């Protein structure tokens, strides 16, 4: 074997041979040197490896609070960033998510909006660790980031109802949010497409003298989306170019009906990080303090190194995938009920706050009731608003209007003029738009 190797990699190894050392007496890897132009030490024992941790154990998960909200042994509660006021802000935002979920799920069932996705408390901890102007590219369960940054319920409802207040002009399905003001990039349905884009966003930040060393690009995605080729592309670019991109992987155990045991075989997503040479950590996603600490540190490393960092946030999807799904078709009810009881991120944090004397039962009731009222009020208001002008069907395809789109717009205008008032389905449909279709030929 040595001879054939020496033919291929002659310079170094023939030197070794010529010093007369026999193969069988090579005790340590360092004495064999490295492969040329690499730091890869040569060894004489054929040994396969299959573990990131070196001893075959699972990558550990970082946690601060236990199931009852008590800091676990050795844990450091991030005192510097947990004041009572901050804790309340965290808790309120976390509590808002299921309030929003419950109401919008029911609204969808009543046919008032077409679709809805449930959200995750893990996201609030992440949001709290980012700078408000870090660029966020999300998948679809991260409205928590927007809420943390001050996106109003009115705007949430506007997008879900696709009414004329929606900055997206009624074009996308519900929960496809976007807000330039909040540095939250527009969500699209295809999975993982945002991941390589985030690497590009990070690079732009790095290139911009105003924002370099101040901001990172932060991309959220699920463990299912991480199976897409785009995940590989994004990780490669952020690690290799490099670009300051923070990869926040929400591992909630399901991609619609597919459990994570059918999504990957390795030690989930954390094991992939070192494959790209990026700093990686796994964290208990139902512990908001742990998430916050981990993301904060991840962000710091990302900024300092200018390179990708991976944080895998472990949680459990207690809700259905979306309003189009009935998850009891593929998992037992008891499993879900158990998780809700024993590993509820909101409960854990509430117990922590109560242990500090920062929260009590009365405040809990008051908060829940107030949030419910706020959500209901926003929903009722949004429901009554008209949809955008019908002209928005044709605008924004390009920055200017080419001949084909102009002609098509004029064609529709002509058709509406001819049939719009006499054909009942059209007449009724036109009423929902602010301009009632009358501005098409402008």
């Amino acid at each position: 074997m040595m001879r054939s190797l020496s033919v291929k990699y002659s310079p170094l190894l023939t030197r070794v041979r010529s010093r007369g050392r026999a193969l069988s007496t090579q005790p340590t890897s360092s004495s064999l040197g490295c492969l040329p132009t690499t730091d890869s030490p040569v060894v004489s024992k054929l040994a396969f490896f299959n573990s990131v941790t070196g001893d075959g154990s699972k990558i550990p998960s970082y946690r601060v609070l236990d199931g009852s909200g008590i800091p676990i042994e050795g844990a450091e509660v991030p005192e510097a960033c947990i004041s009572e006021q901050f804790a309340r802000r965290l808790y309120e935002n976390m509590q808002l998510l299921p309030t929003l979920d419950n109401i919008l799920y029911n609204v969808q069932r009543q046919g008032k909006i077409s679709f809805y996705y449930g959200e995750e408390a893990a996201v609030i901890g992440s949001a709290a660790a980012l700078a408000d102007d870090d660029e966020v590219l999300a998948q679809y369960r991260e409205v928590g980031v927007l809420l943390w940054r001050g996106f109003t319920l009115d705007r949430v409802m506007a997008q879900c109802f696709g009414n004329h207040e929606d900055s997206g002009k009624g074009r996308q399905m519900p929960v496809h949010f976007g807000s330039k003001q909040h540095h939250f990039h527009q969500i699209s349905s295809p999975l993982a497409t945002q991941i390589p884009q985030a690497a590009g966003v990070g690079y732009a930040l790095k290139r911009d003298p105003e924002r370099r060393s101040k901001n990172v690009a932060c991309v959220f995605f699920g463990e299912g989306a991480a199976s897409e080729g785009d995940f590989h592309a994004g990780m490669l670019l952020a690690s290799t170019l490099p670009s300051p991109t923070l990869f926040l992987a929400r591992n909630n155990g399901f991609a619609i009906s597919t459990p994570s045991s059918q999504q990957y075989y390795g030690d989930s997503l954390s094991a992939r990080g070192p494959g790209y040479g990026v700093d990686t950590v796994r964290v208990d996603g139902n512990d908001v303090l742990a998430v916050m600490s981990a993301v904060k540190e991840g962000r710091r490393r990302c900024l300092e190194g200018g390179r990708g960092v991976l944080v895998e946030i472990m949680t459990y999807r207690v809700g259905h995938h979306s309003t189009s799904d009935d998850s009891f078709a593929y998992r037992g009810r008891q499993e879900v009920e158990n998780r809700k009881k024993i590993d509820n991120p909101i409960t854990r944090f509430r117990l922590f706050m109560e242990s500090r004397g920062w929260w009590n039962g009365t405040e809990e009731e008051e908060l829940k009731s107030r949030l419910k009222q706020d959500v209901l009020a926003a929903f009722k208001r949004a429901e009554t608003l008209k949809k955008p002008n019908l002209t928005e069907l044709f605008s924004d395809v390009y920055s200017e209007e080419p001949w084909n789109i102009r002609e098509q717009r004029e064609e529709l205008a002509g058709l509406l003029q001819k049939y719009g008032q006499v054909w009942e389905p059209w007449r009724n449909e036109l009423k929902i738009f602010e301009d009632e279709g009358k501005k098409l030929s402008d």
Partner: protein
Amino acid sequence: MLVRRLRSTLLTLSRRWQTTASNTAIESPSASGHSSSVASSQLFRITRESALRTPGISWQDEESDRNIVGGRETRKMNLYQAVRDALSIALAKDDSAVVFGEDIAFGGVFRCTMGLAEEFGRERVFNTPLTEQGIAGFGIGLASMGHTAIAEIQFADYIFPAFDQLVNEAAKFRYRSGGHFSIGGLTVRAPTMAVGHGGLYHSQSPEGFFMGASGLKVVIPRSPIQCKGLLLSAIRDPNPVIFMEPKILYRSAVEQVPIDDFALPLSRAEILIPGSDLTLLTWGTPVYHCEYALRLLNSPPPSLAPLIPPSLRSAKVELIDLRTILPWDIETVVESVRRTKRLVIVHEAGMTGGVGGEIAAEVGKRAFLRLEAPVRRITGWDVPAGLQFEKFNMPDAVRILDGIMETLSY
């Protein structure tokens, strides 16, 4: 002739259906657009007799010498049940057949694979990780070994990561190897077209993107019987086939479907309603809007009557379902246009780069001197499928009616 007999038979049975099986003026339906065309359609074969007489049916079982039509059974199925039935037959008869994709095992997000994993086992009916490029590549690999690979892409809108595999690999597989390697066993199924609330990414019709990928076949069924027969043909065809199922029809299209193994021919269009004054060519969901448009033309409701010249109302329009988009049945289409001298093509996909342009060019070349009007395309606009605007984006019965009248009076 057959269709007229069908219609009169249906008249007596039509009380089961919501509306409009009469030949008196059509009342305008209560809103909700798309599915009302489907709900009021008379094109579905809802009796056993009519189902067994589906044109072009070719029985694939050993008893195909049993041509006593009365001997075969049918069962009421919607489109996703017809898909499931076809897959079940393919799996039962072909040991090498496997069905795979995202969320397949529990039954699929549209229920097309319900019970198949239980019946045929998880080695043959299984979930893949979330990767369309992987699904396509994996399917190609399986098929290259002579196995039957039936892949599912969850929505046609998500077929694009697989585009490289499909266009660069699948389409060119036979050609680049001098005919020594081939992947006929590959079929890729995907739900397609608008559904009423799909927005940009659950409504697309990407068949046009594949027109340039010679080596691939593209098939789009309009009904449960068509779906079962065409899918079985697609699975068994010695070329890779992309099979796009209009998702709005999964539940709303219902027929009596023969339960036996049967095939319907690929690359053969079907004349649904014979005519002489204009050829109306389409595929998938718009078949029903076209049908509705013809009823509006022939018996306009009072609201539309003033806009429909009496001279046009007796026009006999020939309605053709293209069925296979690539390679398409140029013979049937050109023969029809030579007779009628006018062609209107309808598809949901946008005008630019849509299949209609390709057909119009070929027909223009072959029937140029016969044509009495330019070939008219009625399509989705060249814009993404905005959610709130869908009803004015996808071509509906009134837009089609208007295009027909314009072409008739050119």
